[in-house]
């Protein structure tokens, strides 16, 4: 990427600074999963000696100022404008990782924040590249993530806005009123993850058949497939095979 859009060098260093200097920083590194052993094998004897190995999976930790380059400019304006509108607690944290900036936004304030990002002359994120959902069953209390990639053509900048919902209450406000392009994207996220976008004009399945049970891209949804016999042996379906983790 060009230097203008991703001031990566400084951003990478900023990621190492211990967080906690900002009021809205969670500060802690979030562990979302644990890995056991080395080869992902379960239910068989451990012949490798690595069976007792436990490693944790953690997402990149929130960053502290300065974020580097234009990241600070966007964060400043957003902080000021959300403050003016009484949304001080809308942005839960900022992660600068690998030259990309992510704003974690409280789901209640998502629509207001996106509207700010779109309309403010200093921000002007006119185009949204859509909604992507991620299911992290180990991220307790925020299992479902909805991720928005926004693009400012005016300033040639790209940011990511992320909001979460727990599995028990999979509701996120619909942002079709701000970015009409989210219509089909939110339907896809609902279809595949079961995320309910409140206020969507017609939240129905889009890729799977209307009467399909379940939401296929959730991690607890099986891949499907049947065991296949081959030369006397049986090959289990892909998600039940021994595999590396």
């Amino acid at each position, binding site marked *: *990427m*060009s230097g203008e*859009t991703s001031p990566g060098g400084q951003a990478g260093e900023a990621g190492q600074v211990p967080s906690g200097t900002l009021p809205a920083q969670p500060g802690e590194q979030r562990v*979302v*999963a644990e*890995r056991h052993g080395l080869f992902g094998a379960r239910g068989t004897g451990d012949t490798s000696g690595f069976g007792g190995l436990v*490693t944790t*999976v*953690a*997402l*990149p930790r929130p960053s502290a100022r300065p974020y580097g380059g234009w990241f600070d400019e966007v964060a400043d304006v957003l902080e000021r404008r959300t403050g003016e509108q009484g949304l001080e607690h809308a942005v839960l944290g900022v992660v600068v*990782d*690998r*030259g*990309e900036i*992510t704003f974690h936004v409280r789901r209640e304030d998502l629509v207001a924040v996106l509207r700010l990002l779109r309309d403010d002359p200093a921000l002007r994120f*006119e*185009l*949204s*590249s*859509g909604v*992507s*959902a*991620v*299911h992290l069953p180990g991220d307790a209390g925020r299992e479902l993530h909805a*991720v928005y*990639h926004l*693009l400012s*053509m005016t300033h*040639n900048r*790209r940011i*990511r806005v992320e909001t979460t919902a727990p599995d028990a209450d999979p509701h996120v406000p619909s942002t079709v009123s701000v*970015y*009409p*392009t989210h*219509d*089909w*994207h939110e339907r*896809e996220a609902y279809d*595949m993850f079961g995320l309910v976008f409140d206020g969507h004009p017609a939240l129905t*399945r*889009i*890729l*799977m*058949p209307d009467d399909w049970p379940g939401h*296929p*891209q959730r991690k607890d949804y099986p*891949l499907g497939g049947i065991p296949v016999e081959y030369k006397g042996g049986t090959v289990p379906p*892909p*998600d039940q095979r021994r*595999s*590396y*983790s």
Partner: protein
Amino acid sequence: MSTTDHPAAHDVQDVYAGTSETGEGRVFTVTGQDWDSIAAGLDHEMDDRVVVNMGPQHPSTHGVLRLILELEGETVTEARCGIGYLHTGIEKNMEFRTWTQGVTFCTRMDYLSPFFNETTYVLGVERLLGIEDDVPEKAQTMRVLLMELNRISSHLVAIATGGMEIGALTVMTIGFRERELVLDLFELITGLRMNHAFVRPGGVAQDLPPGAIDEIRGFVALMRERLPEYAALCNANPIFKGRLEGVGHLDLEGCLALGLTGPVLRSTGYPWDLRKTQPYCGYETYDFDVQTWDTCDSYGRFRVRLAEMWESLRIVEQATDRLARMEGDPVMVADRKIAWPSQLAIGSDGMGNSLDHIRHIMGESMEALIHHFKLVTEGFRVPAGQAYVPVESPRGELGAHVVSDGGTKPYRVHFRDPSFTNLQATSVMSEGGMVADVIVAIASIDPVMGGVDR
């Protein structure tokens, strides 16, 4: 709805055709050669709306796209898309394969622009690995070369099928004639006409084969002779212009609100092209122009595509000249924990193999054999995090949201496919127009259902 049977309905013998009464009114199943009975059946219901299901098997709907049109006479009052008929679960499948194997899946999504699918995914993985700057220049140049050749072949199909749908069959035959030449080049370079899985995390799978440079130069020379044929056939053709001009109108505000990018956006006169604005793979070092048109209609999109093929030829020429000077340079990162150890060569049977490498791992070094086995079966680990590196595909912004949990397989890959997003404009482009113009409007979006449904 009237329940009186029309006499013509009794003549129908085909059990799959004919009419049936439903709660929604009378339903006709059209099978051809039964227009009389349908027209007569509609006669006394003229004051009612007619809903037509066009597709999913209609030849003019670009694959398995289903259009639900509400008609008043020949005017479309409401148009909706039904998609999902080609959903293959590629994103889910990728979560059960290694990072390198993921390329094999995503190349099959938008089957007219496989190299763009591969490249956007691979750029995301490389950003997560932190090896963006370590990818050899030759690999980046080969990616650019293949992507631009691919842009030409994709635009040729867009123009060819778009022409065919309005009855310009010559445009279709010459379009596919030229596309075949591009596919021959793909076969020469990657071994396959489609579904290449050639762009890999860290570089590309293989070096250019001998003779490829000459073949590409011959192709560029030939295309410079043949591209003017399209302009001569279409640009000022009164029928062609009559069908395309003013059809499928969508201005800049509409494009931004609905997230449309690519030729549709550039046909509004806004020169937004990620190759220029947010360059990747070294596009900033190539000399080319962003093509625009200012009519916001299907004709403008046709002209943008035509002009972009010329620009792609310019880039292909520059890339070829560079590759000619880079003979013997590496096409994969030097990191042996990412790059597969063997430099494969395509044998006479079309399969890739490297006898030297097999001799080495089977006969000389047990360590090398173990390392090869681990890397190919287990794959490499990618540090946890997420990345989004979009590329300018022939249809607009194509991006892969790649999420890793630090494992050997992608945790989640979501593709922002431009066909999927752009197809949302069907309603605004075609409502209020004629049925025949729906076909033109959709052809100007150039959706590929493999990409829409993934």
